[in-house]
């Protein structure tokens, strides 16, 4: 399941203003709980959610370790395939231990002078756990709390670098606006909530395209006007009254 590896941490890109990685992790955690037919999300599901948010093809590269999610019994492909805007399984609530873990995550973020809770903060919140999935990982990999926290810190540094790169790309000097937008960017352009935008996509009001082989969707800027309806002008309304 785990092998030593000196490669630097490589994480799926986090782009500023796009969905927070922690939110993605929690969304995965809920799906894992549903697949496990559980009605509560606990620490084990949250940890799996974090790992799924970091994984590519079911493999997580974290610090010096490579973690195979399949070896942990995670049907990573099935979790991914549920995709955005879909849900199946029981209704899921947070367990009291999950609440305590999220409270600790917020405390760690505060100590990190971060206004936003990040995935790295939740990973650090797990560092002291010796039971459940985290305990299993510690025993199988043989790491201590300090090594785990160091790997989480490295994750944040990688994210900052990628976020800066994304911002630079976003500046798009001299190239005009993008032709294709993420749901968040499209919602921002229209001044609506992203959930409203997703509703338009699901109902077919707004065409969208799925990136080949991925869950993410893109919306063509040129299609945004399709959800806009012209208001009758005052003159037209007055004419109708006549």
């Amino acid at each position, binding site marked *: 399941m785990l092998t030593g590896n000196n490669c630097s941490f490589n994480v799926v890109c986090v782009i500023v203003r796009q969905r927070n990685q922690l939110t993605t992790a929690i969304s995965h955690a809920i799906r894992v709980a549903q697949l496990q037919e559980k009605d509560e999300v606990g620490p084990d599901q949250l940890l799996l959610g974090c790992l799924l948010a970091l994984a590519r093809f079911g493999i997580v590269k974290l610090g010096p370790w490579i973690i195979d999610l399949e070896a942990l019994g995670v049907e990573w492909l099935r979790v991914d395939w549920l995709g955005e805007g879909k849900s199946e399984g029981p209704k*899921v609530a947070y367990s009291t231990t999950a609440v305590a873990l999220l409270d600790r995550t*917020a*405390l760690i973020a505060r100590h990190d002078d971060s206004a936003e809770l990040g995935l790295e903060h939740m990973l650090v919140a797990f560092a002291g756990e010796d039971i459940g999935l985290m305990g299993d990982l510690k025993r199988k990999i043989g790491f201590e709390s300090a090594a785990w926290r160091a790997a989480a810190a490295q994750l944040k540094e990688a994210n900052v670098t990628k976020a800066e790169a994304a911002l630079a790309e976003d500046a798009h000097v001299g190239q005009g606006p993008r032709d294709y937008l993420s749901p968040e960017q499209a919602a921002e352009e229209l001044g609506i909530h992203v959930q409203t935008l997703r509703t338009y996509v699901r109902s077919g009001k707004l065409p969208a395209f799925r990136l080949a082989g991925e869950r993410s969707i893109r919306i063509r800027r040129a299609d945004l006007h399709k959800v806009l309806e012209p208001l009758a002008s005052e003159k037209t309304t007055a004419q109708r009254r006549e």
Partner: protein
Amino acid sequence: MAMFVVKRTLPGITPEALQSAGLRAKTCCSQMCDEGESIRWIRSFFLPATEQTHCYFDAASKEAVEEANARARIPFSEILEVVELTPDGV
């Protein structure tokens, strides 16, 4: 969609616990939307003098707001429908 206010008193609540509760509310609403429910957490106000919190939701029903808060494990004292007034609307 209607707007609802969730009123709660949270004695001794810390800023971190409030942030954690916000994250839970947001993710639970998102999950319920994925299940086909219409609900959105709009914003919350914390009143330090009374340790009360007023959280505003757009939702199809009061029951949906109740369920989102139950799933997020955030205690509340009551949920009331709200009529919104803004400077632009008067």
